[in-house]
């Protein structure tokens, strides 16, 4: 078991954002976290990444409780592709991908040839190697997202977290990014967790889904188990049609209740 989360709870001031969540993921698996706005999806990712420190619960990566580790040690095990990245300064693609090596660098922050090899490999697998010398603020949304994924890979993590990786991308780039995530998860033996609002993409590319509502797991399991009319009605408050064909599940929202 790559990642095992047990009885995790987290509160912002007095509001309970994550309420007693437990889950397990194997290597090579992609887990999708879905749920309405404010359900605690991003908060959950931040807890797994130890950016937020939950008071209750454990997050075990390969058996090790990362909530007890130093931040740079966490970053060697868990990488995150956040929803927002700001790029107003003209770093090159290579500069940014090399930042993924920061948790592995010494105090003076100089990269070795090994760091460079790892960055090169990360850029090759995400198809951004040819962009190495380009300034990141000149890239398209899809290219930029792949650069950030390359940066995350350069951390050499065993857990990859992605917060809405397909946000603001066109359908071709949405599929491209999701296929990339699937392939990387298999090749690098990652345990991947992604948060998505796109139920159909999540259904197509995730092995398992967790439906979060008000910080609690409302439903968890295979795509077919989680995505049904009743769950969508109860959690999203939306009347939807759920179509199953060729082993895939499609959700067509009809109207709010």
């Amino acid at each position, binding site marked *: 078991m790559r990642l095992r989360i047990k009885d995790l709870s987290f509160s912002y001031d007095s509001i309970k954002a994550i309420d007693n969540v437990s889950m397990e993921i194997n290597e090579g698996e992609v887990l999708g976290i879905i749920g309405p706005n404010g359900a605690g999806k991003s908060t959950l990712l931040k807890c797994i*990444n130890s*950016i937020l420190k939950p008071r209750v619960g454990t997050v075990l990566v390969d058996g090790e409780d990362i909530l007890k580790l*130093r*931040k*740079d*040690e*966490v*970053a*060697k095990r*868990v*990488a*995150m592709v*956040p*929803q*927002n*990245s*700001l*790029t*107003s*300064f*003209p*770093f*090159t693609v*290579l*500069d*940014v991908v090399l*930042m*993924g090596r*920061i*948790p592995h*660098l010494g*105090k003076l*922050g*100089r*990269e070795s*040839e090994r760091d*460079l090899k790892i*960055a*090169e490999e990360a*850029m090759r697998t995400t198809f951004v*190697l040819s962009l*190495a*010398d380009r*300034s990141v*603020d000149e*890239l398209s*949304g899809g290219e*930029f997202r792949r650069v*950030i994924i390359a*940066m*995350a890979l350069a*951390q050499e993590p065993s857990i990859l*977290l992605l917060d809405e990786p397909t*946000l*603001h991308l066109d359908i071709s780039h949405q599929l491209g990014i999701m296929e990339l995530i699937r392939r990387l998860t298999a090749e690098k033996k990652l345990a991947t967790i992604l948060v998505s609002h796109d139920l159909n993409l999540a259904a197509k590319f995730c092995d398992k889904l967790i439906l979060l509502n008000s910080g609690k797991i409302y439903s968890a399991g295979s795509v077919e188990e989680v995505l049904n009319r009743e769950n969508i009605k109860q959690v999203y408050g939306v009347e939807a049609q759920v179509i199953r064909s060729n082993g895939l599940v499609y959700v067509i929202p009809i109207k709010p209740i």
Partner: protein
Amino acid sequence: MRLRKPSAGAGLLEVYMVKRVWRTLAILVTVVTLFGATILAIGVGQVSIPPDTTAAILLSKVPPLNLIFNHNWPTSYEVIVMEIRLPRVLLGILVGAALASSGAVMQGTFKNPLADPYVLGLAAGAVFGASMSMVLGLSLGVGFARYSTPFLAFIFTLLTAFLVYSIARVGKKVPTSTLLLAGIAVGTFFWAINSFIQYLAGERLQAVIFWIMGGLWPASWEDVALSAPPIILGIALIMLFSKHLNAMLMGEEVASSLGINVDFALKALIVLSALIVASAVAVSGTIGFVGLVIPHMLRLIVGPDHRVLLPTSCLFGATFLVLADLVARLVVAPAELPVGIITASIGAPFFIYLLRTKKKAIGLGGRLVS
């Protein structure tokens, strides 16, 4: 640095090595430039001393080398170099380095190309402290009266930083947007009091105005000795945060997920920056534009990576201020201008040029990618 595009098929290693060579070269060039500016500024003045003599006098003070140099120069040269011009040039180096590196840090921390060393209202606080001494006659007492103005300027710069920081703090976090606003608010308040003090100042007004314009003319070895330790230590510690600053420019979430304690880095950078600015202001007044323009200039040449941006900004800021001070001494000799007039009159047109032509390189052409 993107001085040349790599040829097709060039390996990543090659691209990287070319970049690293350029970076090393950039640092070397700034070191050499600073050395040259130092020799020039020490040599030029009402009594002009040839560069080789200047260099020889300086080197003759360095223990293993002093045996090589024969003292074949007039004693007056040595007095001018050692007692008058060297401390002034050293002070220029310290203040220039402090302002330029804290400018680079503030622009990085706030992800805002308009940030400068005084962004937290520090200039207003410094002037308030200095006015208390110069106009209201607040003094450290017999024997220390000479240090009253720098001491009060130093204290009030730090107090302002502390005040702005406390106002901006929300729980354990210090959001940069709140910091900027708090800095503007506190600064405005202090400027109002400063104006009131100046209104009352009478014949002492000129001293205050000169102080606000900034200058290096009271330079003595004591000023150098007082300001050197905090400035050198502060800059050295700031440089340890280079990679943190780089990652923080990509957004706090990215930095945080790279294992960086963003809250701590932010606080440390603000505290260190306030410390070096306070030390610089105490001995030189509020010299403008060095901290704003020099980091932008270097960002154009060496790129946004703080591991090279910070050392080059610091060295070139020093060079710039030493040369600006030289101009300030020469243009209306035997009188001299406040160096702030020179830095602003060179800095502002250059900044306008940057705005018109290189928006992107200084971080104004960016966008939020989400």
